[in-house]
């Protein structure tokens, strides 16, 4: 609702903007969807993909050209380097979810507005739906799976549980990662800092009261009454 909080569209409201600048004149979305397939009509795609399959990464005029067929992409995820083969138009979110089985980050809006896909890139929160997997090569990616397990929760996750900061839970991993980025920077944030850091994420069930308590109280641990 608050325009000021989400004015940067593909970036994260309140937090840092997207991971790298996008060419002027292109919206992030059209860039994402069109970059690797520009000028190709749909039926030509499959043929082009096949033709490119033998040489998916090449240099033309000194510029690295990927695809349009699947290309090998090495991703540094949660401290492990893992290789996936995806078309260059595949987002980081879909690569994480569909190729690496890391389904903590959720696909909800798929256009950089809801925060359910929040992961950390070099320690900063980003919308994984608004990055191509190939853009994340060689950069440190942390997903919610890098924190605790149900048996051994990270203190922040324990604070979420202790303060009932989740209902249906679909937005929760995104909130956890946005909150993680905050408490890594500011161990004992104020309510205002929590509001700012979590303004790029939506919850539909209405868990904001629990979220406030969980994150503003994360520095103390346990339930903040």
């Amino acid at each position, binding site marked *: 609702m608050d325009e000021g909080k989400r004015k940067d569209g593909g970036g994260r409201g309140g937090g840092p903007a997207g991971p790298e600048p996008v060419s002027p004149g292109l919206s992030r979305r059209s860039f994402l969807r069109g970059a690797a397939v520009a000028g190709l009509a749909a039926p030509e795609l*499959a043929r082009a993909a096949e033709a490119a399959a033998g040489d998916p990464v090449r240099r033309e005029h000194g510029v690295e050209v990927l695809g349009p067929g699947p290309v090998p992409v090495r991703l540094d995820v949660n401290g492990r380097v893992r290789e996936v083969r995806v078309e260059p138009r595949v987002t980081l979110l879909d690569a994480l979810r569909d190729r690496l089985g890391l389904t903590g980050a*959720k696909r909800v809006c798929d256009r950089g*507005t809801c925060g359910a896909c929040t992961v950390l890139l070099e320690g900063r929160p980003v919308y994984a739906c608004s990055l191509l997997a190939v853009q994340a090569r060689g950069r440190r990616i942390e997903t919610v799976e890098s924190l605790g*397990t149900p048996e051994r929760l990270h203190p922040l996750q324990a604070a979420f*549980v202790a303060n*009932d900061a989740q209902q*249906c839970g679909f937005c929760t991993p995104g909130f956890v990662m946005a909150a993680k980025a905050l408490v890594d920077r500011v161990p004992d944030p104020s309510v205002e800092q929590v509001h700012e850091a979590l*303004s790029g994420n939506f919850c*539909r069930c209405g868990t904001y009261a629990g979220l406030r308590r969980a994150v503003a109280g994360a520095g103390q641990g346990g339930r903040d009454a």
Partner: protein
Amino acid sequence: MPEYAWPPAAERRLLGKRIARLDGPGKVTGTVKYTYDLQPEGMLHGRILHCPHAHARVRRLDVSRAEGMAGVRALRVIHPEGSEIRWAMDEVLYLAADSEQIAADALAAVVVEYEVLPHFVDAEDRDGAPETRDDEEEVVGDPAAALAGAAHRHVGEYGLPTVAHNCLEAHGQVCSWEGDELTAWCSTQAVSALPAQFAERLGVPAANVRVRTEVLGGGFGSKFSVDRWGIECAELARAAGRPVKLMLEREPELTIAGDRPSAYARVELAADAEGRLVGWSSESWGSGGLAGSGSPPLPYVFAVPDRRHRHVSVPTHVAGSRAWRAPNHPQACFITLAALEDLAAAAGLDPLELVRRNLHLTGRLERIYRDELEIADRLMGWSRRWRPRPARREVGRWADGPRRRGLGLSVHTWGGRGHRSNCALTLHPDGGVDVRIATQDLGTGTRTAVAIVAAETLGLPLAAVRVHLGDSRFPASGASGGSTTIGGVASSTRRAAQNLLEDLFRRVAPQLEAGADELEARDGRVGVAGDPDRSMPWKRAAALAGPSPLVATGANPGPGELTESGVGGVQMAEVTVDTETGVVRVEKMVAVQDCGLIVDLETAESQVYGGLIMGISTALAEEKVIDPVTGRMLNVDFESYKLAGIADVGELVVHMMTGPGYDDRGAIGLGEPPVISPGAAISNAVANALGVRVPYLPLTPDRVLAALEDAVRAPATAGGSGGSA
């Protein structure tokens, strides 16, 4: 047969205590798998081609290129050439492909041409509608005479638009066949009801269909049906011979998978010189798409002695409405409580006082409301801080700056009696307990509540009980709608656990040299009540029961009063309004809520917080904007379909009613009640702040500024009342 009842308050170890939800750890770690997260071996991706027009005929449809593309495995046409489409985003065809990218390419390769037909989408304009459906007029007494002779009278028009459910996990499912047996993982609120819906339309026995829902990412009333996408997903999977996942994209999710009907009303009401309501007359209209809309229960809560109500349903070329939390109540509540507040202003009364003077019209909720109003008054500081509306002539001439502060209140009610439910308990020889129940946990805390009831009854710690739900092969339980789940599953689980104890006691009584009816289970032991020396550990009792597990079942409804119907709630809002920008800010909301016996205080409170927040969001921001020219919904993403964020909801104070008269009424549902009042309470607070009613929700800056401008321009009407319709 045991005497089925809830334990007295003093004996409750777990019931009503603050217990963290059992599904929390799986959710905060991202390890629990939603339907959207599933990816069975060989899975295909389903996609839908949607029609962009609100009303059209398919003139030409050529799928040959799409069908011939490598990686496209199945394609099913819903609307062939010549067929009529009656709402935007209706489905033209479905297909399944090896990857989402191929599926998207295939959709782009479909050639479709439409003949665009005339449409009607603006339900507020009922005079322009091609068709309306009139409900029968309801009349009690002689409202015309009561209105004519009353001391205080108010006429106003009020309205709320359609809003979207906007579940974060889109509607959808994963379907997988083995022979003629289907397993469907569905994001559904109705695990037990879906197999029959699948079976009927797929032509297989219902027993061949298994529906599973471990968790779901929101429903809010929009996920009761198998829907066409469920059937088509199963058909694609059958045709391709591989599992298919099909989840809606956000635009169709907002456009066709969620819709709370609009409601507009012209209201006339009157009170006597003491402020007692004597007459009511209302005519409402609205739409939730082609099916029209239900009649809001007007007047809401207050059975005004002489009253009349008529509803006109206006069908539109919009996908059909779905139950949205507390169907028809938020509309009726806003219309009634706004009119009441306007009447109070006209009569020069504090609306809290007006409500109190009319509690005799609320039937058996009178005492509940009286208690709750007192608590809400204290938590908000209403009596100390409430001020009358500024006079009409003062509007726009603020002496103390452009920011105005106001207080508003509302009351609401809901039924919430427990639905039909079956529960099976298994006691293993090693003492382990499994609970099976084909219900679903929407995030409301159902799983936790079932565990609490079972553990409380069996005298075991919470961790000793394992709860299994979300599988249609378990004992059937009702759909999670209308706040009926907690009463249903708590009652069936309580009866099953009491039945299990009866069986267990009968088997171990001889060892304790006691009668079965002398035994009790508490603190992990089974023994003679009041005689700690004659008891044994739970595990030993379980072992004594025999080499194979004991199984007991329980049902709702059943003997004993474990659930009831009818709760009351009171909410108060404090707002500030910037009269220069029109921005309304909710500073604080107080919710005082009754729900009978609270099973888990923690998740019960969360339901109320959630209702408040969703209510604030709909009051301030939410509206499906449907373009009359194209017939399409315009705000089909989160940039333009506004939701409240964490910084938008102000301070929230929740008070749950407990004690005699409350938690001795059995478990009553809580999902609907707290979402009903926010629109009315916030709108009333804005009216109190401004001295003028903003008659429509949501309270967007443009509406606030328009109402202020109307007030400045129009000559003041008596007492500052009169809806500016």
